């Protein structure tokens, strides 16, 4: 088994801010999806959501306040999973609730140092 990183991207501006019930339904979808991966014993680390504030440091001490305004798809969170192959990990990512809001999941193999 190899480990893979799921990187969740979304256009923050496009994510609808729903009622508490809708937000709860959204949370449930995520929890059921992650729970399903964990039930296969393929969850390595649930990971975290990332805050919307951030800075990017570039050569020459140039600091910009995050990439968020500049790119449509900002990183919103990450999760670590276990799979036999990139294909299997990709298959797992297909169930992610993020697609309903136009987001995406980048699946990357982790090469241990």
């Amino acid at each position, binding site marked *: 088994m190899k480990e893979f990183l799921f990187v969740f991207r979304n256009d923050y501006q496009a994510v609808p801010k729903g009622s508490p019930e809708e937000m709860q339904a959204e949370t449930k979808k995520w*929890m059921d999806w992650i*729970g399903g991966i964990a*039930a296969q014993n393929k969850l390595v680390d*649930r990971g975290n959501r990332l805050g919307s504030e951030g800075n990017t440091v570039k050569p020459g001490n140039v600091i910009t306040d995050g990439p968020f305004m500049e790119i449509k798809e900002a990183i919103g969170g990450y999760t670590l999973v276990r799979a036999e192959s990139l294909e299997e990990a990709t298959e797992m990512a297909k169930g992610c609730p993020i697609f309903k809001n136009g987001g995406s999941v980048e699946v990357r193999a982790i090469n241990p140092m």
Partner: protein
Amino acid sequence: MEQTEELIPHLFRTEYRKLTAVLTKIFGLEHIEIAEDISSDTFLMASETWGIKGLPENPVAWLYTVAKNKAKDYLKRNTLFDQKITPHLQNNSSEIQEFEIDLSEQNITDCQLQMMFAVCHPTISSEAQISLSLRVLCGFGIDEIANAFLTNKEVINKRLFRAKEKLRMEQVKIEFPSQGSIEGRLEMVLRTLYLLFNEGYYSAGKDVTLRKEVCLEAMRLTNLLLENKTTNKPAVNALISLMCFHASRFEARVNVNGETILYQNQNENLWNEELITQGECFLNQASVGDKLSKYHLEAGIAYWHTHKQDTAEKWESILQLYNKLLQLEYSPIAALNRTYALSKANGKNEAIIEAEKLNLNDNHLYHALLGNLYTGIDNSKARFHFQNALKLAKSKADKTIISKNISDLGSD
């Protein structure tokens, strides 16, 4: 005479472990056999003497006095005395008489707690920890332990011997863990108590009384942790809460022949309300701090199972608790239960898709689950899975239930 015959086994169960804990603390864990021998000898003497002379006025005090004297005699005779005790007594043999063996309630409790940490030492296997707990913390006989584990006395004796060897090699002391290590060590103790309880609760052993006693012992030891300020942690409250909820179904889950009655067929009137209330109370006390242990989650699930009525809220809550539990720690049984909860909360079709991914083909419960999920949706697949389950099932009780599922499918 009759009185003696009844009283001694009872006292053995309650007092043997106390004597052993206190004496082991004095002799050191490396000499635990000596402590066990002295405790056993004390009871042997009791049964001989009481049988002839009748019961003493205060049998417990009698036992303590005899145990103390035996321990002192041993210390006087043995070289152990020179190596271990003498330095503390400044080489003055006249002080032996004053050498006090503290059998006060406080010291007994302290020694038992410390013994618990020693027995649940991370260097010995959890199987051995459970056997050792049953022996030295609960005062179970070797044949009882063998019965509980569905094995024979030789296996248990070997297991105990090896565990004691290991404790000796690792030079484990009977003491309270240091402030810095208590959290990790307490986790080990909780894990063992949890397994001990499950051993009694889920064992396939036929002796219902014995199984129940194992559960009650696990609860008693957990209560010891609650009574001490340092160890009265949220996770401990969560564990006892879980045990209370499970124990509330003792009378309802087994029939007179010792066969399991499935949850849905249980008579709720036999559920113990008092234990359910206690469980709720402990669960409230567990809900402080910022650490969510697996015991919190399992107690939450067990809490919902004290409501027999199927509601959307019940199954949604159980599903989310299993989702969290699996993120904390995977186990096949949690994965199967989670998928069952998923079918109740989100419907069978979604649950079938998720069940097919679980990859637990060697597990009879996995096929039983798929059989249940397919029932009414695709009965030929249901039959296929129930038949697989039947092939893999080991216990007679499981086979009976699965056969019934198959015959309920009818012949289409």
